[in-house]
């Protein structure tokens, strides 16, 4: 059985996540959609040629952050089942850093939950990427993580429902 929420060094794949959220349908056959998202390591960023990335995380808090995001999704989109896996360690160009699957009776909720989840990961999960590019390396620093910041949550919800 695949955990719905996970962080670790293993390569990511969507199929097990799709299977797991589908298996958890309240009534067999009641799902109308599974939306998925795969975040990939891109070969360019901010004008730099990226060679590879290294991800690190505060894993116990990252797992709790994923649980929080899943609870937010369930509260906002009842009936949606969510799977979220994030990778850490050395990732080559083209490899997946994050995989998300959201299953629902209706596609609108599945798409929205999937988008909301990646926005919230970027806001509150204690995960960092170090970019190794042609000529140097740099820690990427995005959002100050604050799970209780309701404005950040609204931003994620607006992106999800746009």
């Amino acid at each position: 059985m695949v955990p719905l929420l996970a962080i670790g060094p293993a390569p990511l794949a969507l199929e097990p996540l799709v299977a797991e959220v589908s298996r958890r349908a309240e009534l067999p056959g009641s799902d109308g959609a599974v939306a998925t998202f795969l975040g990939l390591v891109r070969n360019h960023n901010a004008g730099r040629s990226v060679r590879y990335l290294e991800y690190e995380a505060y894993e116990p808090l990252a797992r709790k952050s994923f649980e929080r995001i899943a609870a937010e999704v369930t509260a906002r989109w009842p009936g949606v089942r969510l799977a979220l896996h994030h990778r850490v360690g050395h990732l080559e160009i083209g490899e997946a850093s994050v995989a998300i699957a959201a299953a629902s009776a209706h596609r609108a909720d599945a798409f929205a939950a999937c988008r909301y989840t990646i926005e919230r990961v970027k806001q509150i999960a204690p995960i960092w990427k170090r970019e190794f590019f042609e000529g140097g390396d740099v820690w990427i620093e995005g959002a100050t993580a604050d799970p209780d910041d309701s404005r950040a949550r609204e931003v994620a919800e607006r992106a999800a429902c746009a």
Partner: protein
Amino acid sequence: MRVTVRLFARLRDITGSAELGRDIAPGATIGSVWQQLVADFPELASYERSISTAVNADYARMDQPVRDGDEVAFLPPVSGG
């Protein structure tokens, strides 16, 4: 009292340690642990307004008291995904 300080990403690079033991006075808060670190590593000061903090792997505020044996984490702005 003694706490374990966890440092991540560039904060770890600045201090050269992922984990540090720190003796603290009774009544210490996360903020006073941070100030003690900044005194030792002045380069950390620029993160004062952008870090997040956690105690025992739960997000917490700077004014939260810390207790003997706590794990106090300082987190620079995150960049997962």
